[in-house]
Every structure is written in C-alpha cells, then in structure tokens.
C-alpha cells in the first residue's frame, strides 16, 4: 500500500510536468524567429523597391530608373543633385551642426551685419564664406550677399581700385553660387547684370571698364592680379559664344551679354521659369548690352565702320528679340515686331467692314445721319487731334498702297492716337457691323470681332514694347548707324577732348559741327522722336553746356534761336541740374 509519506516522512507529491500543454517554449521561440525573418524579408524587398537608387548609363549596361522614390525625385526634380553640385565640405559642415544649421546660419547672418556695420571687411568676407557653406542651395543668400559686396561694400571705399576689388569680390562670390547651382538662371542673370550694369554704368565706370579689361593702364601697369584671376574663371556655363573674340572679352558689356544668354539658356519651365521680372524684360537684357557696347565704343573714341557695325548688330539683335514670342500676363504669347502689322491688318479689315456697311462710319463719327456724331462731342483740341490723325492715316494708307504697287511713296510713319480719344471719337467695329445690311450682317460681325482682337493684340504689344522702350532703341540703333550721326558723335568727342585740355578755341568749331550734324539727324522724319528721350536729350544738353562755356571765353551767349533750340527748350531746364537752364548765365561761384 502506497503511503502519502516518503522515506523521510515528508508529504509525497505527485510528479507533475511543468511544461504547459501545446508547443514547447523552444519551439515557440523558433517559430517567432521564423516569423520575424519572414517579415524582415518582406520589408527589405519593399524598401528595396521604394528606395533603389537610379543609375546612369555606362558602356557596359544601360542605366536604370531606380525605385519609386528615385523616380519620383527625378520626375519632380527634387534630388539635391538636381540643384547643382554637392560640395563635400559643405555637407560635412552641415552635418557637424547636428541639426542646428538654421541657428548657425542665423548667428552668422547677425555677425555679418555687425562686421559690415563696423567695416571689418576681412571678417565679413570670411563669415559670408562660412554662412554659404551651410546653405549652398539658398539662392536668395547668394544673390543678396553678392549684391551686398558689389554694391554696398564697394562704395564704402574711397579709392576706385579698392572699390573695384570689392565689385570683383561680389562677382567671385556669385560665381561660386553659379557653380553650386548650375541650373538656376537667376544667378546667371545677376552675374550678367553686375558685369554689365555695375561695371558699365557706375559713377566710376570709366575706371572700372579699364580695370576689367586685360589692357595695361595709362601708368603702364598690368591689371591687378585679382582681376586676372577672375578673368580666368568668368566663363559662363556652356562657355563663351563663338563670336566672342579677345576684344569682346575685354569689354564688360559683351561679357555681360554672354552671361545674359547663358541665363536664357537655363530657362526651363515649370521648374526654372523666368522669375522676378516680366519675360519681355528678361529677354531684352542681352540685346540691350549690345546697345551699350556700341555707345561705349563711341565714348571711348572708336568711330567709323566699327561703330557702324556695332550699331547695326544692335539693330539686328533687337529685331531678333522682337521676333521672339514672349509670354505675357495677358496669357497670350506675342512678338514685339508685329505691332505695325497688326495695326495695318486692323485698318484693312476696317476698310472691308466699311465696304460692307457703306456710310455708317461717317454717320457715327460725324453725325451725317442727323443723329449727332461722336466728333461733335469732343473738345476743340481733341477734335483737332482727331482730324489730324485721320489725315495722317489717310496719307499713310496711300503711301502704303503706293509702295505695295511699286510706285514711289512719300516717307510716312504709321500714325498713333491716344486710346481714350480713339474710343470716344472713332466708330467702334461692332457699332458699324450692327448697322450692316442683313445680307452682310454675319460677315460684318465676324470682321468686327477680328478687328477688335487685332487691335487688342496691338495694344498689348505696345504695352510690352513700352516696358523695354522698344521703339526708342530701334529708332536709335537705326539713327546711330547713319554717317551723320557717327560724324556728329565724333565731332562732339573731339570737342570734348579739346575742352578737357582747356583748348576752348579748338573745341568750339567742333561742337558747332556736331550740332549741325545732329540737326540733320533730328530733322529726319524717322528719327524725330529721338528728341523725346530724356537720356538722349540730357546728353545733348551736356554738350551744349560745354559749348556755352566755350562761348563764355569770348563773353558770348548761346545764339538764339539755337540750332538745337528744340532740345534746349525741352531738356535745358532739367530739375536738379546744378546749373541754370541753357541760355542763362551761370553764377560766378558755381562748381565746375
């Protein structure tokens, strides 16, 4: 008989297994591990598909698009390599900030402001270098600081050599930005603007242009080494165009033009559209450089065929610019050259509309049907303007017809009229079309729509033209090519040289010759409107003032009427000019 007590007298306990029912712990652990491994495999495959990098084509194998994320990055241009080069130093410094890149950038920005205030230029420059390493793809930082160096820091100096050094420092800073962000057009544009306008139109432009070139100065010294160093690196992305010879490489306007063209080549909407300015202005900068190049050629004393060719090139480039379709805020691309064509087309259609509804124009405008015309409601002055416009338009149409049929035609410019007056004085196309006989009604209405569209496009084109002063530059390019104009400029240049040496006796007849030639130019119908431009008129007034001082030597006044009296009347009393209006004696103690 079994006992509940064991040999020691203790309570006997039935042996029990401590393993719970079902799989053992070891088996459960093994199972879990297998599940984990399978999950990991599934995740790895998924991750691989998501984040597989793209590869480039090699000679052994074609490139691959990569995983989902890589394709997405490529499609939307989001990868860092899309922005430009990746600088290992910059990446290292950014990592070293341990996530406080924004704070570090802000502190460096504050320091830079402090150093600039205290005119500690060395530290300012060093701080800007450090700051940009933290944010190499921040376009606005590159733009602002390069502009700050070239425009603000440079003017803090007294000696123009020092000023130019800092202009070049700003350019070098911007150059680094271009290399770091080689797809960004704004940096190229800024580079072009600094080279062209800062160097070419600053108060010290005379010195800057000379220092910029590779020529020796009047003291026989070579250009400073920082300029030589910059010139070794100032090649725009894609290189200089083939038409850039050594002479053009020495001219800041030509180099600026090359950079403007480089900026144009980087426009790639939607990622890289034209930003910050109207498209028409953006594309006008390159040909405008050619104008200033030609202008400065003559200011530097180069005339004759070279100057003529420069202006001719300017006209051709301006024409090519006018042929380019430009995007506008009207959501219609248009071409600046087409305005006259559009106006002519609209007038032809108006003639056809008048043929469909004969006499209705006169009824509406002049009230021939006894119902009172639009003309009657105009002011007397407006009526005179309107009548003159109609006369000029008639002459223009006749001259155009004669030219088209091969007959000799008088030189007549396409007349223009204020849009407000036109709406009040002219019979509108739809008004005429509604009065057309029933049989011609549909065609008349269609013509009216087309006339309205053409006139609207012509107006938009005029607006876009006004943004870039298209008409003036075209007219000037044509005028400056003429032998009279080139001779006028040469005479004025020679007169200025004699004047600067104090030889008033020699300067006076040269000025007089210049004025006679200018008179001939301005009397040409095609170039009459040149007188309306403030800078053109201002330049002539400056020459007239110097001529006046030559006359002062003999105690003579400016003759009245002066050969350029229209220029004197319009621009002789400019506000802010330090001297009294042309024709009046200057005070004895006025500054030279």
């Amino acid at each position, binding site marked *: 008989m079994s006992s509940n007590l064991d040999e020691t007298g203790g309570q006997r306990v039935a042996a029990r297994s401590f393993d719970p029912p079902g799989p053992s712990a070891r088996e459960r652990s093994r199972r879990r591990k297998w599940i984990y491994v399978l999950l990991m495999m599934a995740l790895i495959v998924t991750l691989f598909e998501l984040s597989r990098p793209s590869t480039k084509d090699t000679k052994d194998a074609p490139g691959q698009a990569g995983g989902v994320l890589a394709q997405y990055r490529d499609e939307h241009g989001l990868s860092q390599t899309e922005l430009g080069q990746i600088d290992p*130093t910059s990446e290292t410094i950014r990592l070293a900030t341990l996530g406080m890149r924004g704070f570090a950038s802000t502190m460096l920005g504050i320091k830079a402001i402090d150093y600039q*205030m*205290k*005119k*500690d*230029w*060395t*530290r300012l*420059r*060093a701080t800007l*270098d*450090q700051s940009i390493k933290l944010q190499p793809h921040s376009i606005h930082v590159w733009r602002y600081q390069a502009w700050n160096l070239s425009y603000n820091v440079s003017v*803090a*100096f*007294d*000696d*123009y050599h*020092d000023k130019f*050094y800092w202009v070049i420092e700003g350019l*070098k800073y911007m150059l680094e930005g271009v290399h770091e962000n080689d797809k960004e057009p704004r940096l190229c544009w800024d580079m072009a603007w600094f080279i062209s306008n800062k160097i070419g139109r600053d*108060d*010290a432009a005379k*010195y800057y242009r000379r220092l910029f070139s590779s020529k020796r100065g009047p003291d*026989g*010294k*070579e250009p400073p*080494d*920082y300029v030589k*160093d910059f010139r070794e690196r100032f090649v725009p992305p894609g290189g200089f165009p083939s038409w850039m010879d050594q002479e053009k490489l020495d001219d800041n306007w030509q180099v600026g033009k090359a950079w403007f063209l480089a900026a144009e080549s980087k426009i790639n909407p939607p990622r890289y559209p034209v930003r910050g300015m109207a498209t028409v202005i953006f594309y006008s900068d390159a040909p405008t450089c050619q104008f200033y190049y030609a202008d400065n050629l003559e200011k530097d004393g180069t005339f004759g065929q070279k100057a003529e060719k420069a202006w001719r090139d300017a006209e051709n480039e301006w024409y090519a610019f006018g042929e380019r379709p430009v995007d506008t805020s009207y959501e219609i691309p248009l071409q600046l050259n087409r305005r006259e064509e559009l106006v002519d087309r609209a007038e032809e259609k108006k003639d056809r509309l008048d043929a469909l509804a004969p006499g209705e124009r006169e009824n509406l405008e002049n009230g021939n049907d006894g119902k009172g015309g639009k003309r009657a409601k105009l002011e007397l002055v407006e009526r005179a303007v309107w009548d003159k416009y109609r006369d000029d338009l008639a002459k223009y149409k006749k001259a155009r017809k004669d030219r088209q049929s091969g007959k000799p035609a008088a030189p007549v410019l396409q007349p223009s009229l204020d849009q407000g007056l036109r709406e009040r004085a002219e019979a509108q196309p739809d008004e005429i079309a509604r009065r057309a006989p029933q049989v011609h009604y549909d065609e008349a209405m269609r013509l009216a729509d087309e006339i309205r569209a053409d006139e609207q496009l012509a107006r938009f084109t005029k607006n876009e033209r006004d943004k870039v002063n298209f008409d003036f530059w075209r007219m000037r390019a044509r005028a400056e090519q003429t032998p009279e104009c080139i001779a006028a400029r040469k005479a004025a240049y020679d007169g200025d040289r004699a004047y600067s040496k104090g030889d008033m006796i020699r300067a006076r007849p040269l000025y007089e010759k210049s004025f006679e030639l200018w008179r001939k130019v301005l009397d040409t119908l095609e170039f009459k409107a040149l007188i309306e431009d403030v800078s053109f008129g201002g330049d002539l007034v400056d020459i007239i003032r110097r001529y006046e001082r030559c006359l002062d030597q003999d105690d003579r006044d400016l003759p009245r009427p002066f050969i350029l009296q229209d220029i004197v009347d319009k621009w002789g009393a400019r506000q802010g000019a330090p001297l009294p209006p042309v024709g009046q004696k200057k005070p004895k103690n006025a*500054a030279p």
Partner: protein
Amino acid sequence: MVVENLQITPLMEWLLGAGWHQGLLWQTAGIVVLAILLTVGGLGLLTILRRSSDTPGQAVSMWVGSLFGVLSLLVLAAVALCSTAQTRAFLTDYIANPVFHVLAPLLGTEWSGGALYTWLAVAAGLTGIVYAVCWNSAIVVGGPLVGTRQCGAAVVGIFSDIARISLRRIFALAWLAVRESIRRRVVVVFVVFVILILFAALFINKDSLHPGQLYIQVVLNFTIGLAMLFAWILSALSLPADIRDRTLHTVVTKPVRKLEIVLGRVLGFVFVGTVLLAGIGVISYVFTVRSLSHTHQLTVEKLEARTLPGHRGTMLRGATSKSHAHEHEVTIIVRPDGSAAAEPVGNAKSASGGQAAGGSGNTWADRLDATVETRKDHTHDLYVSGSGDTAVYTLGPPVGQLQARVPIYGKLAFHDKTGADKDKGINVGDEWTYRSFIEGRTNAAAIWTFSGLREDMFPESRFPNGIPVEMTLEVFRTYKGDQERGVAGTISLENPETSKKVFLRNFSAKKFATDVQIIPRSFVVAGSDGRAETIDLFRDMVSSDGGLRIIIQCLEPQQYFGMAQPDLYIRAADSSFAWNFCKGYLGIWLQMALVIGLGVMFSTFLSGPVALLATIFVVICGLFSSYIVQLAGGSIVGGGPFESITRIMTQDNMTSQMAPGMQTNVIKAADQVTSLMLRYFAAVVPDVSNNDFVDRVACGFDVGPDLLTRCFLCEAAYLLPVILLGYICLKQREVAQ
C-alpha cells in the same frame, strides 16, 4: 583694421581710481604700513584659526553671527535704497559722498572709480545678501539665538577651514583630477584640433586681402571653441559622476577638507587644460607661420628697363611670380656706376645679407634702390647676386605680415569748424558712431595729445628716419571729386607747453588702410619771418614732460575725415609675434579657467546635466551681458519679460502702446522688479570675451602687460568667490558624512 575697446587706462588707475597716487595709503610709507598690517594681521589670524578647535565656542559663534547679521542688514538696506531714484539720491548725498570725501585723502581723489573698491563692495554686498538669506532661514527654523549662533559657527568654520588647508593635499587631489581626465581620454580634444587644422584650409579664403589676420583668427577661434567645450564638459560632469559612482566617498572619508577637494579639482583640470593648450598652441603657431611663409621668383626677363632722364640711372620694373594667390610689383632703380645713395632706400640686400644701399657704390647691389610693393599686408626683402643682365634676384620670406606693434596712444580731442574745443566731431550719419568726423577746409581738426615721450624711446639705430606714426582715417565724400586721388589732409605738430605749432606735410588719405607717416627728428620749415627754420623734434616740439600734439586736418572743402582715438598712434617698438601669440593663448587659458571654475562650482550642488546647463547658461549670459543691461534699462523695444509674453500671446507688435489699465500697470510693475534683478545679474555674471585677445593678435597689436595684468586680476576676482561658493555648497552637502 578696427580693434575696438582698446584699453588705454593705465593699470593702477583702473585698479585704484584716478588720482590714486595722491592717496596717503599709496605713498611709500602707506604701502609699507599696509603691508605690515596685512602680514602681521594675516599671520596672526591664521595662527589663531589653526590652533583653535574645529568647533567654535558658542560665544565666538554668537559674536561673529551677530556681526555678520548687522553687516547683512546694512547691505540689504543699501540695496533697498538703490531701488528707486529718490532713495538712491538720498544714499548718494548723505552716506556715499561723505564716506568718499573722508576716505579721499587716504585712497586718492577719485578712488570710488577703482576696480578694487568696486569688487570689495560687490563682494561684501553679495556676501551680505547670501548671509541674510541663510540667517533668516536659520532664525525661522531654530529661533533668533540659535539661528544666529549656527550661522556664526558656520562662518567661523569656513574661516577655520581656509586657514587649515594643506597644499600637499590640494596637489594630491589635483593629480587625481589629472589622472581622471586622462582616463576619460581628454586627449581626444587634441586629436580633434589636429583634424580641424588639417581641414582649416577649407575655411580660409586664400584670396583674402589680410591672410595673416584670417589664419590667426581661424586657429585661435578653433582653439577657443575646443577649450570651452573641453572645460565645460569635464568640469561640470566630474564631481557628479564621482558622487554617483561613490568614488568621491573614498576621498571624503579621508581627512580632506571640502575646500581642498574643490581647489584640487579646479587646479587639476586647469593643469590638464594648460598642457592641452600648450600643445595646441605650438601646432597653431607652426601651422600659421608655415602656411603664410612663401617667397616669389623674379627673373630678369620679367623686368622692363627704362632709362631715367638726367643721368639718374635706369629703372627696372616688373612683377614677381605668383605665389599664395598674389604677386608683387618690383621697382629697381640702378644708379649710375660709382654713385651711392645718401640714405638707404628700399630694401635691396646683397646675396650675402646686410643692407646694400649706402655702401661705396662699387658693387651692383650697392647701386640698387629697390622697392617691393606691399601686398596683403607684407613685402619681401630683395636679395641680389651677380650684376647687370646676369644678376639673379631672389625674394626673402614675407616681412610685416606677422607682427606685434606696441603703440603709444594719445588722447583725442576735436576742434569744430569755428575752432572751438569739442569732445566729439560731426556725425555724418554713419550707423556706427565709433568714429566722428571733421570738415575739410575749415578750422576743424583732430588733435592727439601724447605724453611721456622721451628721445631714448626712439634710438636712431632703430628709427633712423624718424618717429613712425601710423594712422587709419575714414573718408566721407559729399561729392565725388577727383576719383583718381585720395582726399588731401595735413599733419601738424604742436608743443603743448609752448604752443609752438609747425606744419609737417600734406598727405593723401587712404581709407581702411594703415598709413605710415614718419616725423623726422629734424626738419626745416618756413618761420614766421619767412626764413627757413630748422626744427628739432625733441628739443622744440616735445614738452618737458614728454608731451606732443599731432593735429590732423582735411584740406578739401565739403569732404570729411573720420577718426577715433586709437586710429592714430606712435609705433614705438615691436614686440615678438611669437610671444604675442602666446599671450593670445593666455587669454584663452583665462577663459578656460573661468569656465572650469564655474563648472566645478555648479557641480558641487547640481547633477551633471543640470550643472552643464547652468554653466553654459552663465557663460552665454556673460557674453550677452551688455544686451541684458539694455534690456534691464528699458532701452530695448518691446518691454521686459512680462510685457513681451503679453505681446506674444496677443500677437501685438513691439512698438505699439499697451492699452492703459490695471493689467498694464501690473505687467509694468512686474517688469520693473525683473529689470532690477536683471541689472544686478548682468553686473555679476562674468563676460569671458573680456579675455579674448584674438582681435589684437590678429591685427598685429601687442597685448600689453597692463591689459594682461588686468585680465588676470579680473579672473582672480571671479574665481575666488566662485571657488568659495563651491566649497560652501559642497560643505553643506551630505557626501558620506
């Protein structure tokens, strides 16, 4: 180059106030008496304290407690009186001024401006405030008698501890701290610095106009960053780690005083930091000197020859080879055979060394007057061997790039355009008002008055041409004028004693560049009678007490010159650049020592991370102390903390007026209280950047002994109370007691 905040006040004047030399105590007899009193009294006190028991008697505790209690009440009363303008005026008129007048014969006429007395007053004030807080707490807990006795006993205990410290134990604990630092691989700092230096070239723009300044600033700023980091982490984490790991218990259970523990830690870490800084300093110096060291080549083919008219010889001009992103233009005038210059001109040397010009004129080198253009703050000596077309020209190492000028500064005063005396010139609208301006073609002038000049300070052997004066003027043009030349000015000299004034010369101002003008020892001027007069500088123009006035005026109408006091100085001598570089590192050492002291102090009563934060908080507040003072003074737009919080929450801008009412009154009152606290806090926190000599070393100015001594004294003035505070906190803490 601007180096703001140049300390021009002499050391003793700063320490003891202007007119200190008139105080009886600072005469020879007074100093002797003071020394005897301090020595005898100090030794006596030390003896008494060392011989007395650790636990002071009740009577002594009561007396000491009461005395300190009365002093703390006086301090609290003074603080309270300083809180409003009216009570401050009362305190000044009826208490402060009489005390100042009574002590003036003893300490000097303006002793109240002395840093020593200010420190004593602040130390006494802080001690009084701390004692008052502790005393009140003790009274609340145990009653007035017990509280006073306990506080008195604590004070006596502190003095007793101080008297009983053992240098041997301190050094032993310091050595322990050193070993602990090594165990924590503090040498990593050294490795990090070496790596940073290897990549330093990436941070340095080789095209800089001032590469010497740039290199020095980079290496010193790297060092400061590393040293601060090292000091901060090591000092703040050490004690808390020991307390957590209970390793401190083995120390505390020995007969070691808490003050010795704190002192030992500080000294140990400072020692480790010193060794690291020494190593880093050597590497930095070698790196800087080697990086800047360069030379250029000059070949005969690069020289263009031009014959000078009047049989004056031939001029050779050309450019050296390019090195370190620059080249130099060299102009060599070869005088006709047999002639020699009356004075050595230029820096042509013969290949065997020694100045060539001024010789017999027989050798080729003797006939050369060479000038190597200064670029990027330096020039080179030109060495010649051979002659004629086969001469070989070599340029030596750079000269003038790494220097340590010892300037003699004068005091600047102005005349306005009518000639009346003025403290400042005109403000031309510059945002930074460091410089003020004088108008051209008027009586306006800037006058520097120097004193203490002696002829033996400018020996002829070192200053053969005369006394060098360096100036950095700013130019403000109201119209462009002739852009091909600088704005003209004049330099004149005046004897302040005899008022004799002579015109020296005209000059063309160079903006943002140091213009060196030499004042000859003897020169000829047109006298008042039209006859030529020879002027001896030291005999005629320097007064008997060494005074000299240098007057700068602008010649061109409607143009302005701008200047500040340090912009013109006499360059008496040059100190060694290497030694000046060391002094730059001394400044870093001072900053590091201060951070170590603060870190150890905070770690005595805070945990590691909190001590880290507290240390960095105090350091940052010190760096921004001037801003905090402006904030406390109400000159910052947007108000104090409570007003700012209100504006943030209500999305209000900083400049609009707050709506009048009870809420605004409460906010402004609370801000006034915080402003008071901020003002006192800003006055107490140390500004580590005061010991920053980077600018001076980089710009080539010597760190003078006055400045160095002043910084050391300020450091000691901060470290002493910081260490005491650390000791008191550790003493109160129960660590294995």
